């Protein structure tokens, strides 16, 4: 069972103590908005600026850290966090440390998804491989990173363009469809 630790802001402490979401929804287009829900005077949404979130496994090992330098919003009922100007560190996934830098993030704990809907650059910190994409999604339940929206994978001397990249952290491989790879010689 994953333990969520919120740090760096009062709102995120509140976030860590929230009850389980009543309605999962599952689709990001609905999560984070109040579409279909009655407005209440006790709004569950909190907005603040700057904060950090860590996610650990049951043994206390940090799985990922999210640093938000811009504004962020949490929604208690929907189980979501939205933030601007973010740095997301994925720790020791597939034998590598990864970092994503993005203008926007959406975290949905119910659907177990972290999304960068305005694009992101995700790079292994050893410099071996990186991705640039118009949309990036991390699936917390299976450890897959999906890069879509004219994505490019870059290696030290080569690059690959494809319709979509699926980075499987557990199996330590990248799969893609409709690819064009350009290698240095």
């Amino acid at each position, binding site marked *: 069972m994953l333990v969520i630790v919120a740090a760096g802001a009062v709102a995120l402490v509140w976030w860590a103590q929230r009850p389980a979401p009543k309605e999962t929804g599952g689709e990001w287009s609905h999560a984070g908005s109040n579409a279909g829900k009655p407005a209440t005077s006790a709004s569950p949404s909190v907005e603040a600026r700057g904060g950090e979130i860590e996610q650990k496994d049951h043994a206390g090992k940090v799985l990922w850290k999210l640093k938000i330098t811009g504004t962020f919003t949490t929604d208690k009922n929907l189980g979501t966090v939205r933030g601007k100007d973010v740095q997301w560190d994925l720790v020791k996934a597939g034998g590598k440390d990864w970092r994503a830098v993005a203008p926007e993030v959406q975290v949905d704990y119910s659907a177990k998804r972290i999304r960068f809907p305005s694009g992101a650059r995700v790079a292994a910190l050893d410099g071996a491989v990186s991705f640039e994409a118009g949309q990036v999604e991390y699936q917390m339940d299976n450890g897959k990173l999906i890069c879509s929206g004219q994505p490019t994978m870059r*290696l030290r001397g*080569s690059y690959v363009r494809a319709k979509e990249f699926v980075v499987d952290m557990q199996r*330590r491989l990248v799969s893609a469809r409709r*690819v064009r*790879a350009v290698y*240095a010689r």
Partner: protein
Amino acid sequence: MKRLWWAGWALIVIVGAMAWGQAQKRTRTAEVSADDMVFKWETNQFEFTGNCVLEVSGPNQATIAAPRMSVQLTADGRSIKFLKATGPLRTTVVTAPDSQGVKRRIVATAAQYATYVEADQVVEMVGDAQADIITLPEKPDSPKAHFSGDVLRLSLKSGELSAKRVRIRMEGEFGAPEQGERQ
């Protein structure tokens, strides 16, 4: 004034050399397109499947088409080291102009597999390999040669074709007096 004239020429030569160098750098690539790809980052290995096409740029331009290809990068992941295309496959090479300005097209097929090693820039085709060499531009009376053998080797450095246990059939004027069939 004379110094200025020489300086101008030197500048032109330097800029020209830089542009040529950049052009040479740009042409040193190999491109693979395919339906599907898997990249294993621990071994720096790519596996391609479905309509795989390799294009190797350079003085002798080559294209290999095959159903499956695997690409091994160098240990530092900076460049291509080795490629294997699993057949049936088709290779097309357009050679650089020879000393007489003549270009040739080599179209080769193989049933089993082909390998490409970047260090020597040689494509080796294995299994019922066959190749046709045609002098360009192609005309009805253009010289043609047909090779078949167990193994064909194509050098992308020199444009040379060599073979093991080869059978050759030649048509037209190649500049050599002998024509016909050899074993």
